[in-house]
């Protein structure tokens, strides 16, 4: 993570007041936009994303590279503050808008109230410092305790995440740990201040499956223990099925479908979700010789297609009427807690899934 210049707080926007707190979900993201200015043009990495998450729940964000899932989560963490980066919209965390909050304020929340686990623990940890010292540093930023007390805490955390012989291992360097142990150590670091929001960006992608199973179990246990809200970003639909309560499917910087994990897997309504489900190979069954792959490639975020961004790859685009090429569909609620952004009529979506998609899943 490179150090980025902190953005100046904007005094003209109202600071989060207590009025905003009433009935707001723990995390409430509204119309979030993240844009990077580059020499090739403006990259609309996140383009009007809205979702909410309560404590004790796990949200799985699914999407391919360039769908904006990481850009959105970095924005929530307040890590999108480069000079060429514009973040707009609202990110309410526990009744406080992080987009308008001062950099100082966001920094004090980061690590304490919200923490992040990255995909590659080897590059997310400093190779030159002992694991324990890195955890101690993170802890002491937010707690006024002695190094000694912080070290006791570090040992406790390493022990909690299942590092054997934590008392000795606290003095190891990152390279002395295996991939799974490093990921555990990073989880320990993220948990050092009991965050209420934990964002895990592809936390198990670099790990072997047996280690992945251990880490997913660990996240599950920790959530029960601390009642935290977890956002897990992944491209592995199996991981989502295992750990998530709700699923947000992202495409070209926006959510195309959001719903409970059961609905997303058993009654998905967006053609892109169908494409994802049909194109994966499955452990639990032998599929037809050819997979039903989604044709084409994900679009560039510099020139997102007009209308529905998925329409050039959508085999049902013709059924959706001319609007699909000109008008961007908005997320509409189709059932309690289930939202879909698609121009196809609801009946058509239900019918197509039942008759054409489901039989081949």
């Amino acid at each position, binding site marked *: 993570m490179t150090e980025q210049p902190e953005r100046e707080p904007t005094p003209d926007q109202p600071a989060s007041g207590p009025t905003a707190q009433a009935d707001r979900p723990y995390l409430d993201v509204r119309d979030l936009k993240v844009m990077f200015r580059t020499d090739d043009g403006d990259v609309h990495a996140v383009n009007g994303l809205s979702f909410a998450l309560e404590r004790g729940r796990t949200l799985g964000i699914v999407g391919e590279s360039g769908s904006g899932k990481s850009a959105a989560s970095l924005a929530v963490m307040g890590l999108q503050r480069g000079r060429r980066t514009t973040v707009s919209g609202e990110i309410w965390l526990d009744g406080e808008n992080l987009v308008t909050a001062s950099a100082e304020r966001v920094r004090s929340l980061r690590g304490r109230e919200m923490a992040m686990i990255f995909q590659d623990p080897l590059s997310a940890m400093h190779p030159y410092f002992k694991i324990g010292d890195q955890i101690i540093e993170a802890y002491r930023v937010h707690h006024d305790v002695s190094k000694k007390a912080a070290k006791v805490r570090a040992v406790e955390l390493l022990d909690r995440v299942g590092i054997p012989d934590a008392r000795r291992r606290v003095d190891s360097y990152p390279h002395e740990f295996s991939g799974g142990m490093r990921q555990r150590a990073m989880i320990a670091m993220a948990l050092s201040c009991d965050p209420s929001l934990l964002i895990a960006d592809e936390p198990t992608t670099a790990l072997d499956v047996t280690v992945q*199973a251990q880490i997913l179990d660990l996240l599950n246990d920790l959530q029960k223990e601390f009642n935290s809200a977890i956002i897990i970003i992944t491209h592995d639909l199996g991981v989502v*099925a*295992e750990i998530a309560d709700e699923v947000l499917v992202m495409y070209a910087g926006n959510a195309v479908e959001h719903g409970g994990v059961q609905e997303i897997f058993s009654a998905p309504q967006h053609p892109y979700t169908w494409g994802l489900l049909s194109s*994966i*190979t499955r*452990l639990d069954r032998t599929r037809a010789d050819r*997979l039903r*792959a*989604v044709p084409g490639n994900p679009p560039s975020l510099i020139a997102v297609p007009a209308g529905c961004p998925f329409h050039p790859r959508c085999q049902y685009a013709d059924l959706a009427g001319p609007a699909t090429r000109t008008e961007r569909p908005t997320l509409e609620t189709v059932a309690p807690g289930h939202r879909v952004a698609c121009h196809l009529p609801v009946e058509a979506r239900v019918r197509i899934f039942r008759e054409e998609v489901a039989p081949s899943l």
Partner: protein
Amino acid sequence: MNSHEVAKPAAAEPAGADAEAEAAVLSTVRSEPGRPATLTKDDRAAEAAEAAEAADPGGAVEAADPDALVRVTDLQVHFPVTSGALVARKIGAVRAVDGLDFAIRRGETLGLVGESGSGKSTTGRAIARLLEPTGGKVEFDGRDITHLSARSMRPLRRDIQMIFQDPYTSLNPRHTVGSIIAAPLKIVGDLSGDALRARVRELLELVGLSPEHLNRYPHEFSGGQRQRIGIARALATDPKLVIADEPVSALDVSVRAQVVNLLGDLQSELGLTYLFIAHDLSVVRHISDRVAVMYLGTIVEMADRAGMYEHPLHPYTHALLSAVPVPDPAKQHRRERILLRGDPPTPLNPPAACRFNPRCWKAEDVCRTVEPPLVEIQPGHQVACHFPEERELV
């Protein structure tokens, strides 16, 4: 371990780009060819022979299998571990591959699965003879290629090609797509001029790219398209065997499906034989006819697709299959999950006898003293375990 230098095979080296590293690895391996078999190895072999006799002599049947394009017998690849700054002193060996017996039949796809450090990539490299085996034998098309020199290997290179994991590092960024795909053809040297260009165009079309892409550079392509370029290069010389080392792991879901389909189409169109190395058990299920599971340099179970996924016998296979989450929440929450404790031990110092015994919940004394041989206990289904047991896990 930081004071030692391990000549370790890089996980996914770009083709040719790391020639120096490759040469270094080769030379270190060459320094100990024909190393005497250790006692344990003899024990193992005797044991295996005995057991094979006792059970159905499946090994013998397979040995006579005229369909085998590749036959590997007691293959070993060890990398010396040295210490000392001025004079390298050998203090041990990473037994990356330690006694493999299997065959790849013509026209089939053999899936090789295992976790990192299991030796699956090293096995692929030894068969492609990018590495020289420390012991054992590799036969290709009836010919012993175990210790062929680089020069004698050259005519065979056109028959054995590789597809690599990372489409970003396996293509030279300074060469055009045309010259990348033409490179193997130029080395083999039977095409030039217009015929060469025509062949390159044909290859581009074969993998679903437009012939106009000839003069573009790799950076102009997406990951999936780059992997197609790598596939076109591998197919340029009309190989018999394609060794694909994690060919779709770096690709996005929708693009991965396209490349998996392409590999299948090419196989039926061109009659290719694949060795498909991957850690993703669901992709392997889709693409393989037979599957071998590796653990710490040995094969613990080998069966056809249905046998492996529907009736797995080895505890490690059970753990592996149960660890992969299936994309069906209701089913996933009902599934039995075997949680393995700890990480896989290092191949530098593998556990004695059955290598899985320290992590195995069924281990008894015999597992710590006698290495179980890989025996065929059902037709076409081999397992190396003292207590094999069928279990439904997917």
